[in-house]
């Protein structure tokens, strides 16, 4: 029990190392804020007028949960880049020689990226309400639940990114490796269009995509529609991804050293 407490404390210390920097780096903060705003504004005003989705009177109510979902998943790429950056510097050697929990280096990083993603989410939410006019059609509880599903999934993908950041040799490689699969993952899905409109061979791929499941669950909850199994299935996906990739990442991080 004591060991778990220390591991959590060490993880928080590590997370704070990354979080303290956010308010200090004004340029980074501005760009990190502009990006989600741009996503919301561009998609809504560029595609908004030309796409109709059956069952949704207003495309914005369909689209915005998809943009939330995509932006948060993109946010997970910072984990891999950050870990590759840490590994390229001497600091990780120091951390490995300290009497701290080894897993804290990775947990701290993923948690700080989760906090960063929560900030991103609130920025997008504000812009979506005004000027776009997005509304929670369901209850506030449903909206909170929807947000938690999205954040949980992006946290799970942070662990996939962590493993990639540990596996590639450089920050540059982590950057490309981290983003490249995000495009098919988020576009071959229900984030922007109904998969039924896709070519016959692509539709089952989009339907099976866990990102589709998560997006559908969040969208249903934000709009007060029946969510069905999607909420449960998306939690299972996220928990499964965390279980597999967190243990692989932590093992990989520890491998060359004495346990």
């Amino acid at each position: 029990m004591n060991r778990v407490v220390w591991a959590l404390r060490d993880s928080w210390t590590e997370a704070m190392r990354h979080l303290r920097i956010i308010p200090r780096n004004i340029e980074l903060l501005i760009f990190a804020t502009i990006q989600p705003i741009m996503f919301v504004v561009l998609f809504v005003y560029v595609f908004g007028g030309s796409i109709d989705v059956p069952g949704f009177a207003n495309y914005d109510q369909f689209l915005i949960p998809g943009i939330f979902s995509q932006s948060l998943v993109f946010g997970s790429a910072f984990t891999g880049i950050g870990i590759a950056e840490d590994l390229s510097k001497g600091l990780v050697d120091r951390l490995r020689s300290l009497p701290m929990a080894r897993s804290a280096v990775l947990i701290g990083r993923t948690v700080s990226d989760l906090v960063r993603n929560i900030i991103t989410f609130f920025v997008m939410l504000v812009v979506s309400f005004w000027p776009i006019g997005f509304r929670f059609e369901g209850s506030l509880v449903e909206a909170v639940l929807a947000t938690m599903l999205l954040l949980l999934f992006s946290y799970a993908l942070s662990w996939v990114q962590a493993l990639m950041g540990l596996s590639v040799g450089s920050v540059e490689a982590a950057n490309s490796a981290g983003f490249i699969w995000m495009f098919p993952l988020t576009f071959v899905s229900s984030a922007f269009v109904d998969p039924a409109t896709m070519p016959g061979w692509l539709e089952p791929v989009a339907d099976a995509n866990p990102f589709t499941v998560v997006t559908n669950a969040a969208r249903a909850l934000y709009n007060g529609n029946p969510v069905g199994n999607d909420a449960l299935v998306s939690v299972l996906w996220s928990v499964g991804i965390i279980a597999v990739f967190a243990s692989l990442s932590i093992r990989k991080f520890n491998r060359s050293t004495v346990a």
Partner: protein
Amino acid sequence: MSSDLAIDARGLVKRFGDTVAVDGVDLAVPRGAIYGLLGPNGAGKTTTVRMLTTLLRPDGGQAFVDGIDVAADPHGVRTRIGLTGQYAAVEERLTGRENMEFVARLFHMPKSEGRARSVELLERFDLVDAADRVVKGYSGGMRRRLDIAMSLIARPSVLFLDEPTTGLDPRSRLAMWGLIEELEHDGTTVLLTTQYLDEADRLAQRIVVIDHGTVIANGTADELKDQIGGDRMTVQIRHPESRPLALEALAPFCAGEVDVDLDGRTFHFPIRSGDRVVPNVIRALDDAGVDVLDAEVRRPTLDDVFLTLTGRSAADEHEGVAS
């Protein structure tokens, strides 16, 4: 196992694929001593330190740091050591003070103690003025000082300094030497790796010379110098053409091979001990009709030791010149 040893390593082995990086290294460092691990690049110094600091698992042998087995209880070892690696292990985006307090927290020191200790070390390492500035703007010497200060935060019983002055300008290097010498007064045991002979000569009480993963010599700087024989003489003559005559005249004084510089008129050689060597040599050369410009006798340097032991100069190695 004797408990008066701060580092006690026996037969340490580390392989990377087919390469044996460390091939049976023994080390016995008493408490409170500063030991130098001297060797060229790729000799196995850093790999040895990484095994002793639990960053690498040894493939063979045993090692105890502060009496604790590094393989059996790495966590226990980590509570007692400080490590300063070749690359300054600092978080550039945080301030000096934040870096110190960050490490204090990871050592699980109470907050107030961590703060007080940070202030104390920042003062000692002359970083007070820069304490609240982001490390990114620090000079190389400041980073290295902060790095060592961070390693000392939990009062380690053994401090590992892996090439602490590599890449520093001469002035920062001198300052760093002063700081390392002070550690001795604290009673901290220090294992210092270096490829600079003058650094080992000045700082280390005993020097362990390592090459190709094995210990090839071990002793105080003076012992090592004595081990390779007596004093060295350098003679410079005016005309390179008189070299044969000069060599003939010098032969009775030589205790080994004569090394001739590229200019063809400067000779280095070990001499038999004896009084009045310089006047005798000059007289002999004069009698042979050789015009002498300069003649001096000096103690052997560690570079001579290195050359004798390994057949090549340590300086050649770190300049990257193939020998």
